[in-house]
């Protein structure tokens, strides 16, 4: 379970990116965070992932206050999370296979098991035939799918995705969402930031509306 209590975030005075957000996402939820550009969606994900710290407030993940975990121990928390960044953050000097394998290398997976998992993850996003290519040889949408494969390859408990279908056509976007939905059915908590109302309507179970950093409303479907 992810619990946020009175989260405030300020990058630069006097503007607030997030204003007093209090939110609970239960284990196994499929949650969409939506709102116009600049409403604080990405900031919220970064805070849950502890890429950045909030200015005020507390966050509990599975009962642990992640703001109190020291820098050299935060890796344990991150191993239980898969994240898809808005800008993908792929390594362009490494092949697609190696980009996805990175997560399993950190965990010390045996080579054979690592190959199997990476192949399966890439097959899920329909990119197994391009695993020996470099990200620069892929289209924008394909790069995004590599980032998704990397986020799900180790079956994390929590998946955070920032606009994961932003550059995909409708058909592929639905495929990707189905993929997240399947992972969610296996018990993982999924939080997705998106503008796409169609996707929200189709897949959404819990919807969080943000506007100018404020939590406008929550809907459980």
């Amino acid at each position, binding site marked *: 379970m992810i619990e946020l209590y009175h989260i405030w975030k300020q990058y630069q005075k006097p503007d607030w990116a997030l204003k007093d957000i209090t939110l609970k996402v239960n284990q196994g939820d499929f949650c969409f965070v939506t709102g116009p550009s600049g409403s604080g969606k990405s900031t919220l994900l970064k805070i849950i992932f502890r890429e950045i710290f909030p200015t005020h407030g507390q966050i509990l993940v599975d009962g642990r206050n992640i703001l109190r975990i020291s820098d050299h121990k935060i890796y344990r928390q*991150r191993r239980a999370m898969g994240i898809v960044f808005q800008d993908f*953050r792929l390594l362009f000097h490494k092949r697609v296979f190696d980009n996805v394998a990175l997560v399993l290398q950190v965990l010390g997976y*045996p080579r054979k098991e690592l190959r199997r998992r990476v192949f399966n993850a890439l097959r899920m996003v329909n990119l197994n035939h391009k695993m020996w290519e470099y990200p620069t040889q892929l289209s924008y949408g394909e790069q995004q799918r590599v980032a998704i494969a990397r986020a799900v390859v180790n079956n994390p408990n929590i998946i955070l995705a920032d606009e994961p279908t932003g550059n995909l056509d409708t058909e592929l976007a639905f495929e990707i969402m189905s993929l997240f939905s399947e992972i969610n059915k296996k018990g993982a908590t999924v939080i997705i930031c998106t503008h796409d109302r169609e996707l929200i309507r189709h897949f959404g179970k819990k919807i969080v509306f943000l506007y100018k950093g404020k939590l406008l409303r929550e809907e459980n479907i």
Partner: protein
Amino acid sequence: MIAQKLKHFQRETLNNLWQFRARNVFSVTIICLSFLIVGIFVSLSNNLQYTAQQLSQDMAVVFFLAKDISPADQEAIAKELENSPLVQKTQFVSSEQAMEKFLTKFPDLQGVVDNLKMNPFPPSLEVMLREKDLAYEEAQPFIERMNGMKGVEDIQFNKDWVEKMQSLSRLAKAVGFFLGGILILASFFIVSNVIKLNVIARKDEIEILRFVGGTNVFIRIPFLTEGVILGALGGILSLLLLFIVIKLFPVYLGSSLGILNELINFRFLTFSQSFALIFSGAIIGLLGSLSSIAKFLKS
């Protein structure tokens, strides 16, 4: 799991070394040249030390006796020498034998000796001391006592030379460590900066590794190994260069400097010195990369 991680570290280190080969070659060259300077001076010092040892091996004291010494005084001196624990061997050289030795060494000066119409060489006692590395301070009281004996006119002791040689050897070593120390310090900063550039070039990768749950140790190890390899490689290359210098220097110098050739001759480093040099290189590489990655991970 550990084997997989070790394989990963090995692969990453080799990737790093190859990917940034130009600047890695640069840092190896700097380390190599710094250690070469130290190596040259240590080698020179080794030679001076060796010469000092050679000198001390035939360390002798020559007691020049009065020409008109009485047999009783001569016997008293011989007895005193015989009783001393420092003396290994004593040999009496008469005035005639001394002149004979001189003329054998310098036959051209036969005319000068003839013109003197007398034998200028006093009789002497050549005494070999027992301890090879006898300290000057230990031999001094014995020599002073002998000098005070009736019939002893002068004393010649080559311990002075041995000590001068040893001082020179120490000086060479000190100069080597001073100059080398400065260069090694410079090479430390260069390695540190080269690794820092490598770290910056891999900034994105480090960031992603942290996001996917990589520990600081996991991120750090390939860079540290890279530093150690660069340092050790610099040390090994400096030994190879030193070997070439030692082989080529006498050829370049020829025999124009006479006796000085022997003194500035280079002797290769001992096994422990060579090992210490490579080890120091590795340590410098390790410290250089440790400092750069530590700063980066902290930020």
